[in-house]
């Protein structure tokens, strides 16, 4: 392989990594990561520095209503800003993953402040052990309220949390509705979580919301013996979690969900089994599982590249990162979450405890129009830092490019995007028309911007 070919492959693989482990990157950022090296980039993504973002004060300054966010809509500017600008992309991506898997719906909770607290929880612990993630979410007051655990009492347990903990958060059910657990296990889990609840807060209607807090009420906890997944004892919620995470069904469930979110919409059972093993070998360490995924030949192969439908959040914030037009929070940045909503993903308000149905289900005729219009509009912002750099990059490729070379230069400038032969042929034919146009009627900048917009309007751009 020549140096040029090797470099091109390096760029393609790093670009792929950044699309999956984050929300994509500009071509310049890709170059920086290529220079750093693939495995070093994986480690940087997996080990984000700890601490509050330095621009949190600015976010709060311009969007004061989001500081005391009374609803998910009021909280939107906060997460939109992080998704569009965070220098710790995997931290946001893993928060999005858990937000969809351990889903708390804003419609019922209707507490934007708590939703942001939950996203922060996922940032903080989302790359750690699954056991700790389950423990933390079980002490999350928003989750306790969402799944009615404040109504679960000693002698009168509410089974909602215990059931979803097993069915949707850890062990799962098979296609026939069966599972690795029984109804008796659900009942035992519910009894073990009695007394776990959120503290009452004043109603938000006259002074705004108050931060929610977890409360364990020992007097309302069922201390009697329980049998759960073959073990018997005086279990509390923490014991239930410890038992759950030892089961291979839980390992397989999380391996499957990580694979579907980070690798491909089509499960590969061999890869998922290997991830399942790794879960059990590492006590469910999510960072170790992602390290394995990102460094695997399977992940880097062309077989899975551009084979996963972008979620609305991936499309919106990936495109926003590409155009790189937000230096300081503003009205446009605050409204990005609305764009995702228009495409079918209402961040901070998943449709139910199952989260979102992903993959091909993201795209229908209505959402496709929203996707194309949004992306084309963003790429038309030639005053943005990102588009200006793309134009410079295409310009530096030469003044007299053949149509195919011109399309290739535009694809490269957009962050090493690959197109199907059919899409590419159409774009090359379109580029050829520039040559037959009367000289001077369309300048080079206009041509490049139009080509950027055409590229992000292709079916291929809907995949990452």
């Amino acid at each position: 392989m020549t140096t040029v070919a090797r470099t091109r492959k390096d760029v393609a693989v790093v670009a792929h990594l950044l699309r999956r482990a984050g929300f994509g990157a500009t071509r310049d950022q890709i170059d920086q990561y290529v220079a750093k090296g693939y495995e070093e980039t994986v480690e940087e993504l997996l080990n984000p520095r700890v601490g509050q973002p330095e621009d949190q004060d600015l976010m709060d300054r311009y969007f004061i209503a989001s500081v005391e966010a009374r609803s998910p809509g009021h909280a939107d500017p906060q997460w939109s800003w992080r998704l569009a600008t965070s220098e710790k992309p995997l931290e946001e991506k893993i928060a999005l993953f858990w937000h969809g898997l351990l889903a708390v719906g804003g419609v019922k909770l209707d507490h934007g402040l708590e939703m942001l607290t939950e996203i922060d929880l996922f940032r903080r612990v989302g790359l750690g052990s699954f056991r700790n993630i389950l423990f933390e979410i079980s002490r999350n007051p928003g989750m306790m309220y969402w799944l009615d655990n404040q109504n679960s009492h000693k002698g009168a347990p509410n089974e909602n949390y215990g059931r979803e903990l097993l069915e949707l958060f850890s062990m799962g059910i098979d296609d026939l509705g069966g599972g690795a657990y029984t109804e008796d296990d659900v009942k035992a889990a519910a009894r073990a979580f009695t007394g776990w609840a959120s503290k009452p807060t004043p109603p938000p209607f006259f002074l705004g919301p108050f931060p929610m807090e977890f409360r364990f009420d020992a007097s309302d906890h069922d201390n009697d013996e329980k049998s759960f997944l073959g073990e018997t004892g005086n279990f509390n919620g923490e014991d239930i979690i410890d038992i759950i995470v030892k089961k291979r069904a839980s390992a397989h469930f999380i391996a499957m969900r990580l694979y579907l979110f980070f690798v491909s919409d089509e499960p590969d059972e061999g890869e998922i089994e290997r991830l399942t093993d790794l879960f059990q070998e590492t006590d469910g360490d999510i960072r170790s599982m992602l390290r394995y995924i990102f460094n695997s030949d399977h992940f880097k192969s062309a077989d899975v590249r551009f084979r996963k439908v972008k979620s609305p959040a991936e499309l919106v914030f990936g495109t926003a990162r590409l155009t790189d037009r937000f230096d300081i929070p503003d009205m446009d940045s605050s409204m990005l979450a609305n764009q995702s909503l228009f495409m079918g993903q209402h961040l901070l308000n998943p449709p139910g405890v199952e989260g979102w149905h992903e993959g091909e289900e993201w795209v229908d005729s209505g959402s496709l129009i929203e996707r194309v219009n949004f992306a084309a509009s963003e790429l038309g912002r030639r005053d943005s830092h990102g588009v200006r750099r793309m134009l410079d990059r295409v310009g530096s490729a030469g003044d007299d490019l053949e149509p195919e070379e011109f399309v290739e230069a535009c694809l490269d400038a957009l962050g090493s995007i690959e197109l199907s032969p059919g899409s590419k042929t159409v774009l090359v034919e379109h580029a050829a028309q520039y040559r037959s146009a009367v000289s001077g009627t369309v300048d080079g900048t206009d041509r490049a911007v139009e080509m950027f917009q055409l590229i992000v309007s292709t079916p291929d751009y809907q995949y990452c």
Partner: protein
Amino acid sequence: MGLENFSYSHTIGIASFQGRGFMNPVDVRLDSRGLVFVLSRSNAGNKDVRVSVQTQDSEYLYEFGRWGTEPGQTTQPTAIALDLEDRVYVTDEFMNNVTAFDREGQFVDRWGEFGTGPGEFNRPSGIAIDSEGNLHVVDHLNARVQKLTPDGGFISSFGTFGTAPGQFNFPWGISIDREDGIWIADWRNDRIQRFTPTGELVSTLGSSGRDDGQFDRPSGVHVASDGTVFVADWRNDRVQVFAGDGAHNETLIGDATLSKWCQEFLDVNPEQAGWRQNAGLFEQEKRFWRPSAVESTNDGLVFIADSCRHRIQIYRRVHALVAT
């Protein structure tokens, strides 16, 4: 520990998207009649911005400057000022302009657009009026203060971006003292800077931190008629009071009781009242959450915009401050 030089008086306000009440009030000013003008910033996406006018006894009167980009409307309003004729000026960070209303809320004029030139703005923030009726506008992202005639004519400006003495780092609030000295809440430098009327630095107050005399993103500064200096210590959720020479005097953390409007709300919503009693967070309810601006009267009333609790907390001075 109780307050030494102030006593809590009462609170005006309730969270409300329109009419009686406020939504994230970021500024408060009084007119010559003693009416309270409150600027609700809200979340521009929810279109609840407005200036609302009420008496100090919580009688709601009217509102104006609601959401929009047409003349007489605001989108991301940040501050208000009233001149000696009670003309009301509102800065808008989204439209990069200043709108003037009469005291009844009728649109008078507006001027300004995005830019760095004279009379242009990049997110105009705090606004104050000197003894001659000229406007001083904190041109937030241009890191300068512009002096304008009452109808928007450019007079002069001073300030550059930076952290050195006299420079600004995302400045926000402004106050003009009785000698027309200019006080700026140099927000991201965690300090208050005092300038002569022509923009020469006189002194600096504060540094970063949580101790007395330190600030975490001070948003508002107000110099009372007797020279007392109030600083809305925004991210420390408190208001600090200083003598005119900069000596720290008192710290207010919020003492709110239920406003008349809140009490009425709970009276007619007993389920909500029961919910509140059950929560029992009465101490938390009292405290400031991002107080952003301070106003005062000559007879010692102090009005504090408690932004994230949708209310104005009012204190009364009980002892005159003595400069050390």
